[in-house]
Each structure stands twice: as structure tokens, then as C-alpha cells.
């Protein structure tokens, strides 16, 4: 049986991707950030999930103001790397898992989540930077990826509660996938942590908020779903509201999880960067 066994939440700051692409990981500015990623990379190399369902937000790449899906799932065989204005990142294209993606789309819609279904979906830093953080710079990504784009740019994004419930529905959907490969699935939630890119308040960072968020993600995720958008804007910053996507990841895991890795560092460009890795339990383990 396919199952969601792993969860990763990570910031997706474009500058982190650029630092990897341009060999800056050893520079003094970047070293403390990348040092903290080493354990997670090693865990990833040992764990090797078959598929990642990756919740991220598109930043004016695949979608623009003409079409703003709240939740969109990519069902294509592959996803090209978006040109965000610099030319596309020189990284391998992202290979999808259309069979599981279509199963997810059907199951989620019948389970009450009205997904937008996408074939043409160039993927931007929101999706690719977390892959680079976890896998470095391979010739080809050693995993299939199902992009799950979440609107967090147009106010209002989906609520934390809804995101968490979507994660739970993803878990049910994966567990009902009929295959004979026993797919081992990881769910990623990306974006955050506290940051604000815009306005006179640009550069906002709230480390006490972030620390509490990381702690509660492990122990009290349902409590986190009670945080209102206004409080997220205020406490985590206007772009920190991306943290709702971390709740999709957490909802997809078993109620009890083992936290296997955590890293938090300020700054990565304008952002407080966070990474947390969980191992969950299989469906048939009673908790």
C-alpha cells in the first residue's frame, strides 16, 4: 500500500537556490545556513522517498492575476523550470507522477476539496529551492514530484484549518492508491518562515513566533490551525503567511510524528529560513 511516511517543511527563498547554483555554499554569509542543512540532506539520501507531493506557491510564474487557483495539482509527466526573469535555473526538469496525481485529484475532489487540475505548469523557486535544499545539485532529481500550488499571494489564502484538512485528505487519498509498488510518499510544505518583502516594514523577522511555530508543528498542529490570517500577517509578516502551506504537510502525517531534523537561521536574503523534517507512522500502526 502507498503511504505518506515523511514530511518536510522548508523555506523556499530564491537566494538559497542561487547560492547553490553559483557554488556559494561555503561563503561566510551562507555557510551557517547550509551547515544546518547537512543532516537533512543525509537523511534524504538515506530515506529516498519515491514521490514527493510538494505544496508551494507560484510567484507570478505559471499563474498570473488572470487565474488564481486556491489549490492546483500538477498531473503532467514533467514540469519545466520557469523563467522568473533571470532565465530558468539550470537544474533538471521536474518529473511528475501522473497516475498518483490523477488519483489524488479524483479522490480529493470526491472528498470535498475542489482542486484545479493542471497540465502546463512551469515550476518556480517555490518548488525547486526546497528540492535543491534537500538533494543538492544532482544530474536528475532522484524522486518524482507532484506539484501542489497554493494561492498565498492574493488575499485571502486558504485558512490554516483548510490546509490542514487538505493534508489529511491527501493522506487518505495516498493510502487508497491501488498500486503494487508500495510507494513511499513524502509531503513537503514550503515557504516562510517569518518574512516581509514589501513596504516600509520590509525585513520583518519574528524569531519567537517562528520558534513556537516549529515546536507546535510537532506537538500541537491543530492548535496552529487556529491562528487567523490577520495574526499571521502581523506576527509572521505579509509574506510569512506562506506558513499555512506547512500545515498541509503536517495534516498529511500521522498524528504523532518523530522530529528528525530542525534548522533555523536568520537571515537568508530578507527571510528567516526554517527547515523541519518528520517521520510519521504507517497507516496500520495504531497510535
Amino acid at each position, binding site marked *: 500500500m502507498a503511504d505518506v511516511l515523511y514530511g518536510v517543511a522548508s523555506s523556499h527563498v*530564491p*537566494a538559497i537556490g542561487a547560492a547553490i547554483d553559483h557554488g556559494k555554499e561555503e561563503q561566510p554569509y551562507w555557510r551557517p545556513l547550509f551547515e544546518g542543512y547537512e543532516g537533512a540532506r543525509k537523511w534524504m539520501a538515506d530515506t529516498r522517498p519515491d514521490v514527493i507531493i510538494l505544496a508551494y506557491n507560484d*510567484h*507570478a*510564474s505559471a499563474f*498570473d*492575476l*488572470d487565474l488564481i487557483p486556491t489549490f492546483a495539482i500538477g498531473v503532467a509527466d514533467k514540469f519545466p523550470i*520557469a*523563467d*522568473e*526573469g*533571470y*532565465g530558468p535555473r539550470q537544474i533538471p526538469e521536474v518529473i511528475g507522477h501522473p497516475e498518483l496525481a490523477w488519483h489524488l485529484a479524483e479522490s480529493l475532489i470526491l472528498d470535498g476539496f475542489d482542486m484545479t487540475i493542471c497540465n502546463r505548469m512551469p515550476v518556480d523557486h517555490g518548488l525547486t529551492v526546497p528540492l535543491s535544499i534537500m538533494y543538492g545539485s544532482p544530474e536528475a532529481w532522484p524522486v518524482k514530484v507532484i506539484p501542489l500550488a497554493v494561492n498565498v*499571494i*492574493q*488575499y*485571502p489564502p486558504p485558512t490554516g484549518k483548510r490546509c490542514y484538512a487538505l493534508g489529511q485528505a491527501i493522506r487518505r487519498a495516498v493510502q487508497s492508491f491501488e498500486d503494487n509498488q508500495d510507494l513511499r510518499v513524502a509531503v513537503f510544505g514550503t515557504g516562510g518562515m*517569518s518574512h*516581509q*518583502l*514589501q*513596504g*516600509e*516594514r*520590509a*525585513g*520583518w*523577522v*519574528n*524569531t519567537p513566533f517562528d520558534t513556537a511555530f516549529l515546536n507546535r508543528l510537532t506537538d500541537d498542529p491543530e492548535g496552529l490551525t487556529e491562528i487567523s*490570517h*490577520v495574526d499571521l*500577517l*502581523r506576527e509572521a509578516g*505579509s*509574506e510569512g503567511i506562506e506558513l499555512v502551506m506547512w500545515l498541509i504537510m503536517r495534516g498529511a502525517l500521522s498524528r504523532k510524528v518523530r522530529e528528525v531534523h530542525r534548522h533555523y537561521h*536568520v*537571515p537568508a*536574503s*530578507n527571510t*528567516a529560513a526554517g527547515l523541519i523534517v518528520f517521520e510519521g507512522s504507517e497507516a496500520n500502526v495504531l497510535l
Partner: protein
Amino acid sequence: MSSATREYDDIPGTYVFDADHHRKGYHLNMMCMSLNDPKNREKFAAGEEAYLDQWPLTPEQRKAVLERDWLGMLQLGGNIYYTFKIAIFDGLSMQAVGGAMSGVTEAEFQQMMINGGRNDNG
């Protein structure tokens, strides 16, 4: 719904991209989005004024783009992920733009981030 009071209005220095903001900035943001295409970047480089003629921008929006008034673009309906496409075109970092919006130099902004970011409620 227009100009209704919002619970987030009191957050200082923050322009939430809500319905009002979207309606004000739709064309400005779509113009910025067009710079994802390398052919459009060439055209923009060849003549910004003529390039901007393709979108029904307000005179204030036009001026803000030409003068790289990053805060002005936000106030006129811009969204940072869209207006940042112009900064990418100019070869500017997010810290340079963050500094410009908050009234400090890029170096000062960078140093503030290294010191733990802005956390003074301002």
C-alpha cells in the same frame, strides 16, 4: 466591499494584496509579469516608454515604474512578487528593494537582516 475597513489596516508599512489592491494594480502587475518572457525583456530594454504603452497604466503608475519608485508601485496596486520582476530586470537584489522601500541603503538593510531582521514593530 471597496475601501471597507480591514482588520489588518493597522499593521504598519504593509500593503495587503486584497481585492481593492488587486483592482488598482491589475494592469501594472500584468505588465511586470510580461517580463518573464526574454523577448519582452529585450523590448523593455529597447524603450521603456513604448513598452509601457501596451498597458493602460495610470500616469502615476507609469511614473513610478520609470523612476523605480518601489514603494510607490506598491501604493498604486503593485504586488511585490510582480514589481520585483522589474528589479530582476535591473539586476537588483531583494535587499536593495527592501532598503529602498524602508528608506535605507542596501548595505544598511543587509546589516539589519544579519542582526536578526526588523523586529521593532516598525
